[in-house]
């Protein structure tokens, strides 16, 4: 975690300016502006229903798969507008990977789950795939546990292993950003700890944005923390500062448990 005295050296990866979001005519997010730095972990905290997951999903435009949405304002990746900059959303989703709340491995073998991504883009050579699968599984700290049973069905694994498999699956297509939507909420403490360890390792090469309603987790893993309430950004700062000397009273109230 960063300490307040170190200057930020990493460039901005994702940038949001005056962004508002609505489902049909229901406005869910409003007036959001923040920056996410590359190779840092940014946590988004806030009570249920405050729009954290909705916001996260805007980065890879996964909403559009199932509903008609309205996004105003700017969301930029490396300075290019995600919505209006001519970026193809299918390409975007390869660059911005996602891990979901409940592990959702495909009902296929472990190998096929991880190879699914590269196969989408035309990789079919067996040796290349083997290499990519092993790389991804190693990065997700799962290789040693599954290397002898790659052909077994992914659905037979434990919850924690399945989630790490989902992480490996996302990593296999070489994303630049990893969005994590409450990835540990369905897991036991040991599995959670393993994934938090993973996040530490992954952030060296990946921008991570993690939504969590577990404040201790946010405090443990993230460099920056943003506090959302009712679809708006209340405060965003270095994690250590947010949790020790928050600027806004509401933030302090939430962190100390006065509401939430």
């Amino acid at each position, binding site marked *: 975690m960063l300490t307040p005295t170190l200057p930020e050296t990493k460039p901005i990866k994702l940038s949001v300016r005056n962004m508002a979001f609505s489902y049909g005519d229901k406005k869910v997010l409003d007036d959001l502006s923040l920056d996410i730095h590359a190779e840092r972990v940014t946590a988004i905290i806030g009570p249920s229903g405050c729009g954290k997951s909705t916001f996260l999903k805007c980065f*890879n435009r*996964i909403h559009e*798969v*199932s509903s008609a949405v309205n996004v105003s304002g700017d969301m930029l990746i490396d300075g290019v507008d995600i919505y209006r900059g001519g970026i193809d959303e*299918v*390409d*975007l*989703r*390869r*660059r911005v*990977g*996602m891990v*979901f709340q*409940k592990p*959702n*491995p*495909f*009902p*296929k073998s472990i190998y096929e789950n991880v190879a*699914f*991504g590269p*196969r*989408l*883009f035309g990789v079919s050579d067996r040796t290349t795939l083997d290499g990519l699968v092993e790389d991804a599984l190693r990065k997700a700290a799962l290789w040693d546990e599954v290397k002898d049973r790659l052909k077994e069905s992914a*659905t037979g694994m434990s919850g924690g292993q399945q989630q790490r498999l*989902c992480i490996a*699956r*996302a990593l296999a*297509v070489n994303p630049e950003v990893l969005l994590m939507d409450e990835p540990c909420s369905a897991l036991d403490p040991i599995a959670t700890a393993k994934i938090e360890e993973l996040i530490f390792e992954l952030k060296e090469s990946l921008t991570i944005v993690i939504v969590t309603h577990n404040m201790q987790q946010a405090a443990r893993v993230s460099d920056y923390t943003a506090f959302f309430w009712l679809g708006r950004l209340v405060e965003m700062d270095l994690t250590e500062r947010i949790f020790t000397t928050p600027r806004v009273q509401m933030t302090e109230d939430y962190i100390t448990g006065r509401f939430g």
Partner: protein
Amino acid sequence: MRAVPAFRRSRSSKLVDRLMRGVLWGIAILFVVVLILFVGAILKQGWPVLNLSFLTKMPETLDAGGGIKPQIFNSLYLVVLSLSLSLPVGLGAGIYMAEYAGKGRALNFLRLCIETLAATPSIVLALFGMIVFVQAMGWSFSIRSGALTLALLNIPVITRVTEISLMAVPRELKEASYGLGATKLQTILKVALPYAATGILTGLVLTAGRAFGESAILVFTAGTNASAQFPDFRLTVPGETLSVHLWYVTSDGTLPDAREIAAGTAAVMILVLLTLNLLVRLVDRAIRRRTR
């Protein structure tokens, strides 16, 4: 304080309850018995006729002793042909309805059309086939007329089963696929369809069974004659199937052993369908055991 009347179940209501339970059980058992008697009678009548020569001989036109070899061939041939025609259309329409059509009036209208086609009596489809294929296209009573019209029978079932099976695919799986950067087609082909495959397959087998037993359509499109050449894969010749043969031999009545042939044909059809039914159940159980 007024005494509250003690509500107790009357004797008559208890009697009625017991009686109606008995009635319900009785009706259910009646159906089971009807089925057993039905299948039993057909098999009993047909059994003495079923021998290898019956199954492998060509039919007679005037004398006794004919077989049903070409009809067996035609039945299978027409099922395979009509399924290969209706499968792509049914799959395509089902995929469109489940994955592309949205939720509004377009989808509603499509569903209405599918339901109407599904409920259309087969004799009406036979009339249509007659006008379009037999007469207008000039194909006369032929395998191709029969296969195309039979395909009309299959399409609504395949479409419905495809749509239902695809809608049962969990949203998270599709989300995961899109999240990795898959296109819609890739998600459908690599995630949704594999998941829906067993449901669709079961629907296909049921459709095959229905096409196998269909007679009204084929009388008016594939005709009541079978080719003298065996096996005849040509699409232009008439193709009497087992079901049509059963009907024709019975209605026409000129054959001296019409009864026996009809009995044998019916028995063959029942046996085929029983086997199909059993197969479906076994495959279903095997698949369910595998994905546990």
